[in-house]
């Protein structure tokens, strides 16, 4: 009896400690974002004197950062980049992932290996020749230039993720369809693709988050007023707001960039978290 009690007490103590540490982490997150949110609708004077929200809510910080800071335009640009890139990456990667995981042909292992190796190449190494080539083609500072880079660059990860899924499906389904007289393409299009819907959505969420937060290529390829992304736009806007001492505007800008990610995460956290976990086990 005594031993059990001691064990129970130890267990309780350990869990109590766990709640305190995890609670502190969560409190830090909530407090920081709460503070930034409150500051984003206060005045800069209130931020400096520690009296957030004292004069009510100032939505005009957001209006200013979206209009004069141009973040509204950059927000729209980033959405365009993300949506087209996600679609483009799928269009190229789904078929490739399908044949790489379901068809037998010579060279399959080599092609797969090349795709996997591609995820390790330093991006700044590939950037120099691409910048040179795109300069000659007139693609620098255009939407097309960054879109090409994003779509092609997302192929290795998207193929890797989807072929993992396709190879987990049983082969009987396609075989039965083909026995019934369907072509290989019909079997892919009307049987396998619908089954892959969940995996396609998941990989698209990952790609979207990657494109939304992408920094390096956006900085080098489209750092101009019309085609800039939200990330680089925020950095530019923060620089000029620091010069003006407009701290309320800086915090409003942070929220504009972070809120879409947060919303996506609130709805999809379980999906995102469990897929990273599954990926870790597979590799």
């Amino acid at each position, binding site marked *: 009896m005594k031993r059990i009690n001691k064990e129970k007490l130890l267990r309780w103590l350990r869990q109590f400690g*766990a709640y305190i540490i*995890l609670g502190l982490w969560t409190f830090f997150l909530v407090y920081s974002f709460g503070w930034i949110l409150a500051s984003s609708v206060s005045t800069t004077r209130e931020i400096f004197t520690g009296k957030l929200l004292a004069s009510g809510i100032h939505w005009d910080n957001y209006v200013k950062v979206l209009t004069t800071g141009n973040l509204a335009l950059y927000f729209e640009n980033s959405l365009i980049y993300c949506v087209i890139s996600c679609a483009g990456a799928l269009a190229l990667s789904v078929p490739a992932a399908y044949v790489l995981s*379901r068809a037998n042909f010579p060279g399959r292992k080599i092609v797969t290996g090349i795709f996997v190796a591609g995820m390790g190449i330093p991006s700044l190494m590939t950037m120099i020749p691409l910048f040179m080539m795109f300069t000659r083609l007139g693609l620098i500072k255009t939407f097309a230039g960054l879109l090409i*880079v994003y779509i092609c660059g997302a192929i290795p990860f998207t193929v890797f993720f989807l072929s993992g899924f396709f190879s987990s499906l049983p082969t009987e389904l396609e075989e039965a369809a083909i026995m019934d007289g369907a072509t290989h393409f019909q079997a892919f299009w009307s049987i396998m693709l619908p089954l892959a819907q969940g995996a396609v959505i998941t990989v698209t969420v990952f790609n979207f988050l990657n494109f939304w937060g992408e920094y390096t290529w956006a900085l080098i390829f489209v750092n101009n007023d019309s085609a800039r992304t939200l990330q680089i736009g925020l950095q530019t806007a923060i*620089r000029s707001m620091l010069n003006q001492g407009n701290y309320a505007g800086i915090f409003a800008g942070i929220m504009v960039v972070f809120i879409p990610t947060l919303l996506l995460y609130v709805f999809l956290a379980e999906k995102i978290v469990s897929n990273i976990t599954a990926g870790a086990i597979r590799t």
Partner: protein
Amino acid sequence: MKTDKKMVLSFLIPAVIAYMIVSIYPVIHSTYLSFFEVQSWTENNPTFVGLANFISLLQNQVFLKSFGNIGIIWLVGGAGIFGAAFGFSALLTSGIKGKSFFRAAIYLPNLIPVVAAAAMWTQYIFSSRFGLVKSVFSALGLESLANIEWTSHNIIFWAMLIAYVWGGIGFFLLIILAGVERVPVELLEAAKLDGASMIQIFAQITLPLLRDVIRVAVVMWSITVLNLFAFPRSFALTYTEMNTPSIYLYQLAFGQAGGTTSGAGSGGVVYVGMAAAAGVILTIIVVLVYALLSLVFKEEKLEY
């Protein structure tokens, strides 16, 4: 499955070509350029200089120091990230309630876009006027700690490292947790019954069984650190204290003044060939590190 050749080709070729354009071809062209002096982005007749770019880079203190910086980030930051990830995975598997909520909360910082995360730390948490760190230390009466200027030149590197570790823990926690949860409970209970201590169980059962997961995590961490660019650059745009090899490569290729407003190719002196050489050196190191880690974590399948 019997294969339809036409379908294989038409499904595969677009992706392979697209991928060659942005990956394979640039690696080859970069290697070629690293042997030339290229002083502008539109230069048509670069001068062949042999190994001169490599030699001057390997004698360049700024370049070498940038490797020292990522060495520190790899070691100190890695200790922080892996320590915290193991710690959190122990806490999350201790049978607490709300596990998936806390797991999601630990992962969240990973998703904050870099520019927003860097601004959050530099403009709020480490702010010397109204920062969170300052107010916490002031409230505790620790005035000397409260007066630290976190964003000053001599310690901003460490401030960046703290913020970077905070952002990276979640991803590595998920990977390690996935491994921990696959360790059979019976094994741990049997050891406990035999009188093994918590530390013994961790060192002699959990850790060896996590080998594969740790290998994946260490490889990912090493490659991420070697290529580090966005976070330190967003943390302090022009401070040389933050230089990583990639940041230095960027400065060589696009000019020292390549801040956010002027941007790439805005004139000034550029050293494209030397930047390409820096890229080649970096890629060679990535390959070497990968080979070394594969050697350290030799495949040795444990069945359980």
